């Protein structure tokens, strides 16, 4: 479990970083907290000639209110996000998902940008970004751009980022009044990747009718998913007329290619996914109703 040889680079700013990526091409890999990459290197499941470390790159850390959104620098650690009162107040779903990520030692090093760019389908942050319609800010030698989370996750561990493109920050919309949020996941042990997880954001109008809702699913496909058909069917309905179990079963009815391994078959994950959606739905609707 020793990695194959690589050259280590420690750029100081984002422009230098993407310049290195452009120059080194596909043999280079960015390393942020390293919580996924280092084990993959040690097991030689991944081999790169160059590692470009983001630890010393300026301007990638921080949490700031920017208008109706909260900007979080890509190199901000999960632990910093978990501690942030601003995140807890303005983006509660992100705050609530954070303690579910691994263990605190992992969260002390793991970053939001690393998690989103690594795009593990069972990870919390990619699913939360998708659920909240976050916007992803990037930089490449061709300039900066902003991508919607929808469509960003293109396959297992793959995203819409170009080879020489760096994720610099993520903006999350500030919560609306009369809204509620919940995340539920099921893992074999505390801190393990979820076998099935669900994030729910729901916004009500004055008459306890569902103005809009988002249901994010993780661990249930090759990428984090939104239960789009279930969301559409729920919009405009009164919360009293919706049973959480129905939301759960509708949300998982859309699923194709649910993963299976030693810890759970596809059928089981789908079943637990429905339970997680139902539980998250109940809590989110209650919070929105109480707001």
């Amino acid at each position, binding site marked *: 479990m020793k990695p194959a040889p690589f050259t280590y680079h420690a750029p100081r700013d984002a422009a230098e970083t993407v310049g290195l990526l452009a120059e080194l091409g596909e043999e280079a890999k960015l390393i942020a907290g390293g919580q996924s990459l280092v084990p993959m290197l040690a097991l030689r499941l991944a081999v790169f000639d160059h590692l470009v470390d983001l630890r010393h790159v300026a301007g990638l850390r921080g949490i700031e209110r920017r208008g109706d959104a909260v900007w979080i620098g890509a190199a901000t650690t999960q632990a910093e996000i978990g501690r942030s009162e601003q995140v807890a107040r303005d983006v509660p779903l992100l705050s609530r998902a954070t303690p579910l990520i691994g263990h605190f030692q992992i969260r002390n090093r793991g970053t939001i940008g690393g998690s989103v760019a690594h795009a593990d389908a069972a990870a919390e942050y990619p699913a939360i970004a998708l659920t909240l319609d976050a916007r992803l800010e990037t930089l490449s030698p061709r300039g900066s751009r902003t991508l919607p989370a929808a469509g960003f996750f293109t396959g297992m561990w793959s995203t819409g980022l170009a080879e020489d493109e760096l994720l610099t920050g993520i903006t999350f919309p500030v919560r609306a009044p009369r809204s509620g949020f919940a995340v539920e996941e099921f893992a074999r042990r505390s801190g393990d990747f979820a076998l099935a997880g669900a994030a729910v954001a729901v916004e009500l109008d004055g008459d306890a009718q569902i103005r809009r809702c988002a249901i994010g699913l993780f661990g249930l496909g090759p990428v984090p998913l939104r239960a789009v058909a279930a969301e559409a069917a729920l919009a405009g309905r009164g919360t009293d007329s919706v049973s959480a179990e129905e939301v759960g079963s509708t949300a998982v009815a859309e699923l194709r290619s649910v993963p299976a391994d030693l810890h759970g078959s596809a059928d089981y994950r789908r079943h*637990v996914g429905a339970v997680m959606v139902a539980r998250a739905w109940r809590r989110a609707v209650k919070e929105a109703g109480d707001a």
Partner: protein
Amino acid sequence: MNDETTNGARYAGTRVPRVEDPRLLTGHGTYVDDVARPGTLHACFVRSPLARASIGSVDASEALALEGVHAVFTAEDLNPGVHEQWYTLIGRDVPDTPRPQLAEGEVRFVGDPVALVVADDRYIAEDAAELVVVDYEPLPPVVDYATARDSGELVHADYPRNIACELAGLPVEDFPVFEEAAFTVRETIRQQAYAAVPIETRGIVAEWSAVTGEMAIWASTQSPHEMRLFCARLLGIDEHRVRVVMRDTGGGFGQKVLPMREEICIMLASLKVPGPLKWIEDRRENLLSAGQARHEHADARIAFDADGTMLATAIDYVQDVGAYPIPAPMNTCAVVGILFPGPYRVPQGTFATTGVFSNTVGRTAYRGPWQFESVAREVLLDIAAREMGMDPAELRRRNLLRRDEFPYTNHNGMPYSDVTPLDTFEQALEMLDYEAFRAEQARARTEGRFLGVGTCTYVEPTTDSLSLHATEGATIRIEPSGKVNVYVGGGSSGNSLETTVVQLTADALGVDIADVNTVQGDTAVTPFGGGTGGSRSGSMTAGAVEVTASILRERIAEIAAHRLEVSVDDVEVAGGQAAVRGKPETGIPLAEIASIAYFQPETLPPGVPPGLEASGRYRAQSPVIWANATHLCTCEVDVETGAVKLLRFIVSEDCGPMINPSVVEGQIAGGAVQGIGGALYEHLAYDEDGNPVSTTFMDYLLPTATEVPVIEYGHVETPGPGPGGYKGVGEGGAIGAPPAVVNAVADALAPFGVKITRLPVTPESIVALVRAARVREEAAG
């Protein structure tokens, strides 16, 4: 014993803080990878990616061309170096199963070592290992041991039907009671493969000096003296020129009792390389190649009369021994069958037991290797109780042996003594308040919550007296300052042997514990000893310390008597001095007596030898010392997800008087957590092609602090037949926990009428059982 000889034990029986803790808890332990010898070379194995294949050519040219690579060895290079390969613990003439060093001709499991790369560091060695090209011709593997006897393929050509060993009592057909009894329960119970998984993986440094003919070995081992004897025989060098050193071993649990193939290869290769050779197993290798345990099943039955009195037991047991079991599996196979009746009053019955080869990693010893006797029996008892409409506690109460019934010989001829199964059972139930729990369970069910309670009661053999384990020695040196060093063979792998030896020695010599130090694990300076294994260290080292200390006590008393001009019988050795009994003010400090013994030998009384150093050897007083315990677990099951939350975990145990209750409880906790892991989480699984699918801690799930409740302890103290009455306690935790957990989950799910007969109890299996039960219910209308 201490009471008789030292006027009251000061330390035995108390929670003396562990002397190991300051170094271990501050990261100052010395594990084998901490050993740094000048010029060390590093080894990495090239391992088979296939479950079964014949080996064609091995091309190492590219690997050898890599800078920093010293050698690539194959079977052809290393295997002929073997002089004799057998374990002292097992004996030379006992039939053994095949165990090549590097794979020869055929690989037999994924991970089978095929070649050994030696390089300047482990990084280069791993780079080079990837460059070794082995030409494999795939063969159909025998993956499933349960069907292996009917397979057309053989794991080893010399073992027809893939049978490694077989033993049987009378055929079960000879016992009409199973047909005639009012009630007979019969199920096939299955347990998955799981493993010891020590936090420190295996590792060895072997340093051969051709000039002096000396071999020095640092190893992660439970038995340095076994390793020394083994190495001397293996390489054909003199035993007294081999030195094995271990300071800290980070967990063994049976896996490090005997040198395994990789360690053998390092010993062989060390003669052929220009520097010390180090191999540190990584986690993937440990999960791939350090062995499995627990993979087994049995067709088990128990006959009862109408009142629930047990009439007979029978078990037909089959064990997966993998490709290369260590040691040969006959012994544990037999013990599972023989101990199946457990601590219950069972007048008749029989057993059959079979070990079967498969193309998976070999079986190794693991904490309570015969544990399945308890799993099968206790799970079956709960199933029987539910089917008979009895409370499982009441069923056990009716059949557990009472204190006054011992010694008792079970129907397979195994004599138990000095145990208290019913006492521990009642104590555990009382600690829980069993009736209150049943009431709470009933209330919870009305709210749609499912709570359960399960127990396991067992007797276990500890402190065997066979061969390597028959004796244990100690050397005690009272230094000229009066400070004490005690030398024992050691082999502690986390079981606090330094603490208990220091406690016992301080008591035996009547000195302050701070004045006692112990040296263990270095074969050059410690007396020969069997190491840790078979829950033997408590009793055997207590015996060794006492035998040796009594020599010195006598000598001290003689010197003091001479100086004080009193009779030896009037001298008392206590409080760091020797004094006239009842007159501590007459005391001569130990330092002064030591000074006389070493520096003024001319003043010694006639016949008293100079110096205050002695060696003694204790011989086990009985073939085995029995211990017993009851584990009790409560849980809540989320029937929607299948999640199991353990609520309370209670262990009532009788290991006799305790040398150190904290150490005893630490042993129980460690074993119980491993058992909880086996019941719910750990699975060393293979796919149908024989590929292992849990070779990292992502997939091999060890229970962590969040999965395990605080473990509660109850103690019953019945002296055993050895020094101090101490019994073994190292293994029991891992025996009792799995059935208690399984039974608790099954009890929680009782309203659904489900039966759990397969481990591990995963969330998915629970959801499937509940779902099937609901389907049955609907079908029944």
